[in-house]
């Protein structure tokens, strides 16, 4: 029996760990796992090619974190028509029932949590916050938009088009910059926004590596103590950074969980054709998201970094 794992990229630690989780589970269940990835964030074509390769290869099921949730639908349908079980991981397809099942976190919710936390933590100062938005890339892949818009919603900022970032008119936003989701990009973007407005006091980051870069930029001008950084992911280095006070709060997701559940589902399907059922009351299997912070805010459920470290990936 063989299965495929198709991730957005394989350079982001998030997907690297997801792959490791899937591999471990597959080895345990005696399934041959082949992994594929896009070359860059938002690489839709490589994912289409990967789905086609899986079909040609006679795999029993596909786990996919779609780069373009609408566009991949056709390929997924072709795979299902060919008798494969397709499970969307991390990111639901659009429409969500295009896949046999979805094991995902809600990225919008992840953003919302850190937005609410930031608002509560700033308290009165939230009204005149100076916010830097460190996003992923100018092609605005869907995670990028969901996390960004979720954060703004949670912080209480009026969204323009919720399918796109950068069209908000709230004067508290200093600007959006793109980071490619790594330290280098985070540092440069932060430096640029600081040049534009040295009084920034809240930084949203697409993921924890970008947050680490932003922190370096703040440290360089001695402002690392009085600026709040929030992020999403919950990788072990990220949680460690929460513990060290680099990041104020991060929304933790569970890629290992998603991947191993996905493999189990494929194994079950290969055995007797059973399909996984969604979480009660939702149209997908929610693998959950939790806020990790050592400074809990009232009314927002969170776990501390010690707990976060137990649950973290990578």
């Amino acid at each position, binding site marked *: 029996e063989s299965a495929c794992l198709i991730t957005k990229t*394989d350079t982001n630690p998030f997907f690297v760990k997801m792959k490791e989780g899937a591999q471990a589970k597959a080895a345990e269940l005696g399934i*041959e796992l*082949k*992994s*594929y*990835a*896009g*070359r*860059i964030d*938002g*690489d*839709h*074509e*490589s994912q*289409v*090619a*990967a789905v*086609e*390769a899986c*079909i*040609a*290869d*006679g795999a029993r099921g596909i786990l996919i974190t779609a*780069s*373009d949730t*609408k*566009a991949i*639908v*056709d*390929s997924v349908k072709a795979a299902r028509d060919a008798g494969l079980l397709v499970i969307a991981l991390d990111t639901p397809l659009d429409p969500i029932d295009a896949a046999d099942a979805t094991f995902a976190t809600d990225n919008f919710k992840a953003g919302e949590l850190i937005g609410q936390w930031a608002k509560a933590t700033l308290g009165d100062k939230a009204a005149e916050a100076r916010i830097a938005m460190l996003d992923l890339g*100018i*092609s*605005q*892949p869907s995670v990028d*938009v969901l996390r960004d818009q979720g954060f703004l919603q949670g912080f209480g900022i009026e969204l323009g*088009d919720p*399918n*796109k970032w950068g069209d908000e008119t709230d004067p508290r936003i200093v600007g959006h910059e793109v980071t490619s989701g790594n330290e280098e990009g985070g540092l440069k973007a932060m430096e640029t926004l600081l040049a534009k407005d040295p009084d920034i006091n809240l930084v949203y980051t697409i993921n924890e590596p970008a947050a680490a870069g932003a922190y370096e930029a703040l440290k360089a001008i001695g402002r690392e103590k009085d600026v709040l950084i929030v992020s999403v992911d919950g990788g072990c280095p990220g949680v460690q950074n929460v513990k060290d006070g680099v990041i104020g709060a991060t929304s933790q997701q569970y890629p290992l969980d998603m991947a191993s559940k996905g493999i189990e589902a494929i194994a079950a399907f290969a055995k007797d054709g059973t399909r996984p059922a969604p979480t009660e009351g939702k149209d997908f299997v929610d693998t959950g998201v939790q806020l990790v912070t050592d400074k809990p805010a009232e009314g927002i459920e969170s776990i501390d970094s010690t707990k976060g470290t137990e649950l973290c990936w990578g």
Partner: protein
Amino acid sequence: MSSDTKTAASYEEGLRGASDKVAEFHEPKSALKRLQHWLHMTPSAVPMIVLIAAIIIFGLKEENFFRAVTLSTILQQLVIVGILGCAQSLVVLTAGIDLSVGAIAVFSSVLMGQFTFRYGIPAPLSIGLGLAAGTAMGFANGWLVARVKLPPFIVTLGTWQIILAANYIYSANETIRSSEIAAEAPALQFWGYSIQPGGVKILYAVFLMIALVALLAYVLRHTAWGRHVYAVGDDPEAAELAGVRTRRVLIQVYALAGLFCAIAGWVMIGRFGSVSPSASTGQLGNIQSITAVVIGGISLFGGRGSIVGMFFGALIVGVFEMGLKMVGTDPQWTFFLIGMLIIIAVAVDQWIRKASA
């Protein structure tokens, strides 16, 4: 006065009775020599040999590889790169390089889609407009290269960014769904339809790609314009002095490349079903097409190589990628091995050429 006029040429009397024999040299005769000579004369044969070798090796490693489905999948996966490769080949033959091919393709596809769905223009007209827009973008490249005399690398580096940004801004990052297109404007998806002889699916797009390659091969080889393209790439000053309208040819080449990219954009809609402004072809199309072009033996210094070689180059990359995936290689190892392949393929090519020179 003219006492020295006559004598000057006197020694030329020695010419009388000069031999008119053409120099004779022994021709190589052995079969090996003849093979080498044929390889030398047929530059596209080298990538073909590499290709066949690759197919045989993967076929032995992985039984599924030889199934018709696998091979048709490979073909359909390389249609976009193949068509972009045609555009790239034209430009590279003139000693240029076009970094904007992928961006033009993506933007053209977005324009076709948005014209239809945002403004309600009938699909065939939208397609026409999209093709025209792609041609215009190519023309802009050509104008900057030929008239303003900027280096092609810079021009297309700039237009790549400009077109990609315009694409994101204009489309507001919105994907148009496959089901909507299928319902309202199936013409956009034309190249995604297929014939299925004996159950094996072959996209119309595959035939289109082969037709385009054949057409370009004919034009380059058998028309005056094609010869001019080679001459411009070889030595633009000499071509100009010899009576080629260098600048006009350059502009035509870039505009035609733009048209090919727009066709690739149309094919993208059929192949992927939907219209997506963030398609990675916009970012990676240039490197992929350049890889195909160079593995296919077209010289980046212009004037040497054939379009059929490019086609085999694209096939080699396609076969390798698919083969490695099926053997179950990790994606990073795939990139690693494709990097090796690029170098080895070109090294083998060089070696054969040298042996046969």
